[in-house]
């Protein structure tokens, strides 16, 4: 997604006194990686007998009546959905249905888009992502993102990974951290002998894995993937999908994809978005991936996943 121009970043990012408190609370919660779920966080799927992939999992994101508009244009009608820990959640749907808008709203990447306005609430581990005391930089440090087009920095492979940890003061054992991130992204064996080479000399698929390595190097809690394989060849796509499975036990992954097979192959939960009568993006159906693809409740979902629409 390209954003027309270098728009101003209008929301403050200054560390107000309240910011520290909030981010520290967030940190305490998220460092408890093992799945300790409190009853209140337990997934509730009223229409089901508990066989859902979400059952018993902690809620990472709780979107409550979230709607987005850019200036006068409405991009996303109010949606309510929960995203669960250590699952891969896919957002699918035709172009312009608001799935990327929702994804970028989760870590406040839309803040810099002129006219961006979000209503409703996005709770991240119970904290309002758009709360007045929340530090946007801290949000993004917890919630990493990989973009549609591989966007490595014009630096060396090593410096691409090491840049963000250095910024955050994670300078101890930097070499080990870089190696770990590259191993996590299944890239280590291919680049270990040329870490000082420019990252832009890598192939597209390698660049995208480098971007994933870059994201995991600062040990976020969530990975947001915006059509990460759409610009890649099938083999690289497969590598990314295997990577997602390998990362799943440690991260909560949300992926936007145009590729329905990819959603069916990789995701535990799938949300189908479409355009309503006013051409505003809206959430049609959100359930376990298997149900979305095999037994969709809504005819629009069925038409889309069977290829009769779009």
């Amino acid at each position, binding site marked *: 997604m*390209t*954003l027309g*121009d*270098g*728009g*101003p*970043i*209008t929301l403050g*990012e200054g560390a107000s006194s309240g910011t520290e408190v909030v981010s520290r609370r967030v940190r305490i919660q998220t460092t408890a990686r093992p799945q300790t779920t409190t009853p209140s966080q337990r997934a509730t799927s009223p229409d089901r007998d508990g066989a859902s992939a979400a059952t018993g999992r902690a809620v990472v994101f709780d979107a409550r009546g979230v709607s987005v508009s850019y200036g006068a244009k409405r991009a996303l009608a109010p949606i309510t959905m929960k995203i669960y820990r250590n699952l891969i959640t896919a957002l699918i749907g035709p172009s312009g249905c608001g799935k990327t808008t929702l994804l970028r709203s989760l*870590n406040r*990447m839309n803040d*810099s888009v*002129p006219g961006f306005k979000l209503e409703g609430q996005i709770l991240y581990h119970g904290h309002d992502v758009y709360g007045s005391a929340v530090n946007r*930089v*801290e949000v*993004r*440090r*917890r919630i*990493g*993102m990989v*973009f549609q*087009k591989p*966007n*490595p*920095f*014009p*630096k060396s492979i090593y410096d691409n990974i090491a*840049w*963000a940890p250095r*910024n*955050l003061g994670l300078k101890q054992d930097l070499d080990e951290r870089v190696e770990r991130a590259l191993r996590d992204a299944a890239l280590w064996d291919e680049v270990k002998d040329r870490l000082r080479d*420019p990252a*832009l*000399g890598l192939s597209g698929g390698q660049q995208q894995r480098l*971007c994933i390595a*870059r*994201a995991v190097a*600062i040990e976020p809690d969530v990975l947001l993937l915006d059509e990460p394989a759409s610009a890649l060849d099938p083999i690289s796509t497969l590598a990314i999908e295997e990577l997602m499975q390998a990362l799943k036990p440690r991260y909560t992954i949300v992926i936007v994809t145009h590729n329905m097979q990819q959603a069916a192959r990789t995701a535990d939960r799938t949300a189908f978005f479409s355009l309503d009568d006013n051409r505003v993006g809206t959430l049609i159906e959100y359930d376990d991936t298997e149900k979305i693809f095999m037994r969709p409740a809504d005819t629009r979902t069925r038409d889309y996943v069977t290829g009769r629409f779009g």
Partner: protein
Amino acid sequence: MLYGLCAVAGLITMVVIAEVVYQVVSGASPAISRFGLGFLWHSTWKPNFFVFGAGEMLFATLVTSLMALALATPIGVSIGLFLSMLAPRGIRGVVGPLIEMLAAIPSVILGLWGVIVLAPFVQQHVEPWLHGVLGFIPIFGVAQTTGLSVFTAGLVLTIMVVPIVASLSRDLFLSVPRELQDGAAALGATRWEVIRGVVLPSTSSGVIAAALLGLGRALGEAVAVAAVIGGGSALHASLFQPGTTLAARLIDEITSLDNKLHLAALFYLAVILLVIGVLTNLIAQAIASRLGNQTMLAR
């Protein structure tokens, strides 16, 4: 038909350049054959004794221009960053054109303002203060009576160079791909970290080229400098002494020639100016084109 017109226009440009170079060099040839390269460092300039040397002017030209470069680059880059990354949309729309308008002020008006406003202010406040604080460095000597000095000339040149550096660097910063900045921001980088880590490194060659273009402007400026530099004719360590630059000497004396050799010596100054100006521009272009390759290939 249109093709012919454009071709002729291009041809005329080349002919004019060749003609100017030829006239300047041939006009200077008596002085060149008489003084040789020694002209560059001999600093005696006495038209009525047929003694000419460009040393002092070359020195003052370099000092004023480098001073302008040193001051205008950080200021211009800061303005460029402000206009491209930091300022709200409304302020950009106002300040941006204002900066460009600053570049459009005729230099004679800046010179006038320099004489009437800037020089007295510098003489009364800036120079004594700098002498008081940094007086142990010889370049910050005692303030002279008028404020017409190398230092004041450097300040006027700074004002002329800032808009060039500011608008060029703003455009450079705006050309940094949004995806790169987003990628950095998504890693929990602050705005300043994004600027320092991604924006500045990927535009550094362009910023250098912009600064060199500004330097070219400063080296060749005549009218504004002639107005405020005071027209001294001796080498001084102190910036607060008057002096004269190549271009300022040219414009001061071209209408009051003592003899034929005087004219040839002035032409010789023009040759030096031409060489310096062309060199600066060539270097700036070489750096800028290397930048083009770099952003495309990133190698």
